[in-house]
């Protein structure tokens, strides 16, 4: 197969970027999108040109490293997958493909298609955990968890932190990411002790990082490769308001 690529090239965070056109020829329909870029890059480097930088690692759809805006869709046109799981058989021969990095103020461009997503780590550091030191935990079966709760917690916990929700959101909000973690822990007995404090701390960090506000567009859910639901956002909002009201009344 053959494609014409319009790729965003930007040499560094402070440099201006631009679209550059490349031909991707002799591409197997069985190749993944990233393998297609590998082929283009290999040709670039062997002719002494700098290859297109992009983040990727596991190529199994689970590490969350890869993430490209492809023809305006985070992770490309197929729902429910990451870029590494997108295969060229889903494109038509000769198609023009526009490839851009995630765009959000809180995700500055590092180079070409690579962006800095450490803001998401700082949201987790603010409270996205159960405070338990190693050693001395009670027997795992001493605290039963209803199957339904553990399944719902897992639905939320399956977030891979790729940032597609932020890239898809017209406000560049990180609500879906933050809510997924808060809800995962809030649904389990292990997460109760810090539940309200966690909701407040994570939301505060999210705002401090420069993410926008959630206005319920729903683009995040549509773009999420793991099917994380917007219900989590409602769940977080509930916990956050409750925590806020209780803090207010205890003043």
């Amino acid at each position, binding site marked *: 197969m053959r494609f014409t690529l319009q790729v965003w090239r930007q*040499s*560094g965070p402070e440099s201006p970027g631009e679209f550059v056109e490349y031909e991707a020829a002799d591409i*197997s329909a*069985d*190749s*993944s999108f*990233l*393998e297609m870029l*590998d*082929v283009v*890059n*290999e040709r*670039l*480097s*062997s002719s*002494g*040109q*700098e*290859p297109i*930088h992009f983040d*990727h*690692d*596991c*190529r*199994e759809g689970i*590490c*969350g*490293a890869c993430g490209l805006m492809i023809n305006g869709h985070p992770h490309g046109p197929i729902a429910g*997958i990451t870029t590494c799981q997108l*295969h060229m058989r889903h494109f038509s021969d000769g198609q023009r493909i526009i490839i851009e990095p995630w765009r959000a103020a809180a995700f500055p461009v*590092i*180079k070409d298609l690579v962006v800095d*997503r450490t803001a*998401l*780590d700082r949201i*987790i*550091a603010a409270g*996205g*955990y*159960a405070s*338990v030191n*190693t*050693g001395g*935990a*009670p027997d*795992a079966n001493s*605290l*039963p*968890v209803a*199957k339904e709760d*553990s399944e719902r*917690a*897992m639905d939320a*916990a*399956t977030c*891979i*932190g790729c940032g597609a929700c932020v890239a898809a959101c017209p406000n560049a909000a990180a609500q879906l990411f933050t809510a997924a973690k808060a809800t*995962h822990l809030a649904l*389990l007995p*292990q997460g109760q002790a810090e539940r309200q404090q966690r909701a407040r701390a994570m939301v505060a960090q999210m705002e401090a990082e420069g993410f926008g506000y959630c206005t319920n567009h729903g683009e995040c859910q549509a773009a999420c490769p793991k099917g994380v639901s917007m219900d989590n956002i409602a769940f977080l909002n509930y916990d956050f308001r409750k925590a806020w009201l209780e803090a207010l009344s205890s003043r």
Partner: protein
Amino acid sequence: MSASSATEHSSPRLDSRIPPGALADKWQRHQNALRLVSPANRRRFEIIVVGSGLAGASAAAALAEMGYRVRCITFHDSPRRAHSVSAQGGINAAKDYGNDSDSIERLFQDTIKGGDFRAREANVYRLAEVANSIIDHCVAQGVPFNRDYGGLLDVRSFGGAQVARTFYTRGQTGQQLLLGAYQALMRQVDRGQVTLHPRTEMLDLVLHDGQARGVVCRDLLSGQINSYSGHAVVLASGGYANVYYLTTNAKACNSTALWRAHRRGAFMANPCFTQIHPTCIPPASEQQGKLTLMSESLRNDGRVWVPQAAGDKRPPNEIPESERDYFLERKYPAFGNLAPRDISSRAAKEVVDEGRGVGPSGVGVYLDLADSIARLGKRAIAERYGNLFEMYQMITGEDPWQVPMRIYPAPHYTMGGLWVDYNLMSTIPGLFVIGEANFSDHGANRLGASALMQGLADGYFILPSTLTDYLAGHLGEQPPATDHPAFQQTQRDVAERLDRLHNINGSRSADSFHRQLGKLMWEGCGMAREATQLRELQENIGALRQEFYKDLAVPGSASGVNQELEKAARVEDFFELAELMVRDALEREESCGGHFRVEHQSSGGEALRDDSRFAHVTAWEYRGAEQPAAQHHEQLSFEHASLQERSYK
């Protein structure tokens, strides 16, 4: 050095420090004897942890919780991306929640036998012993393990075991365990106990007075070479299977941290022991950059088969039951489709070599869940493996609900690694190695659901005790500052090396060399090995390496982000490592685990171990680029497990 004999003693350079006494008491007795550092003194120590996977993140978090100052270095943009995240199947523990007579003793026996008696008995027993605490701790962290309807933990079975002892979170167990460890780590980052260095790659180890005192790293954003010093260095940098290029490993997995430590004096043990995983999706095109694993858990409900007749190209549903060969069930009736990975992989290769392989390339066997779908219903199967079915369909374009999946073995996990003693310390004092990066617990083969167990056992529970013992002997010492000549010299070495690679100015990318090296390794030092082929391989690797130094192309600048430069340095290390792997494979004149020497097989084609000559670990000492590495042996003694023939029939 010649091959060992039955009476061989371990090399004096390899003191395993296995505590005396009965196997079941060793760890407890050892813990009681280990020195302590009081809580008030712990903040005086700085520890460098390289890697943020299950082993690295858990170690960094646990040490920080105790009060040590920790620096955690990862080449990822976030610790959450470490490749442990991709492990699917589960984690073993001997809780006996399944009421099927499981015990620490049985988990130990299965694991030592699974490794074909090439692992260290005391380490394996300790692993089985601490496994239960891992489950308890992870549940307390909020890891959403699968539960049954009564709210208790659910278990399933895995290859090489006749009990159900594998805990899991759907098909994403590694992900959830890693997120647990990552969250614990980020909590310590927030507290200021851990300094995190993302997008930072360790490129060398710094020694002072013969002890590990720091690391030299490249900041992958600025391109700057920086040093960090500490009282001890912990390598948790994972395995090196990517030497084969097409593997189940993530693209960035590499051997550099291990290899550079090896070049500074850490012995490399059993490098030729690579696990070939049986359930990988076969490669589809020449452009393939990576292979994807289907979880081994599918073998719980999937039946593996090929047509009985060679060259039978009919679609699977047109091949009647009577013309199919369920070869694992036929050859290994007791374990059937749950035979261990090495046995299943070799059996698949055999039928493909006989011309009975399936799929467009003929390199593959069917993994068929049709019987289970008919028996249990689509819903039950979807609940167990739904995400794997979707993943398979996405990659191959085939619907596994309609046609059986196709699988073939692929390099997966490396059992070899840096040699460590019972305290997980390498031959360099102050350099500790944990998780897949060390050699100690899996022998010549690794059973499913035991890698996550080892990573977390080392990081959460074992290293914190043994590292404390080492630090207790260094109270009051200040490690040299990074402007010390030892650091400056190592930093210069690293900069010169990168310049040298950058300035070759050839016309071939690092990837193209890597792909070719991988192909050579897979063909000559893969599932089956043979002396003449291995010697030929040595020559071919040597020739390719010369070509690498003449024709490598690294475009872009050495300052700033340069992914090609990162790859070039990693591929250079893979070349040197590959040479050692081949040498190790040549020396080990027996078949064991995933390492099958064609010259050593039973009349039935099974692996033929040679305990009288090879019940040892081979540890290699680097002696410079001009001299071949020196061989040392640690004799393995089995006081508790009996060295039995490994039969799964």
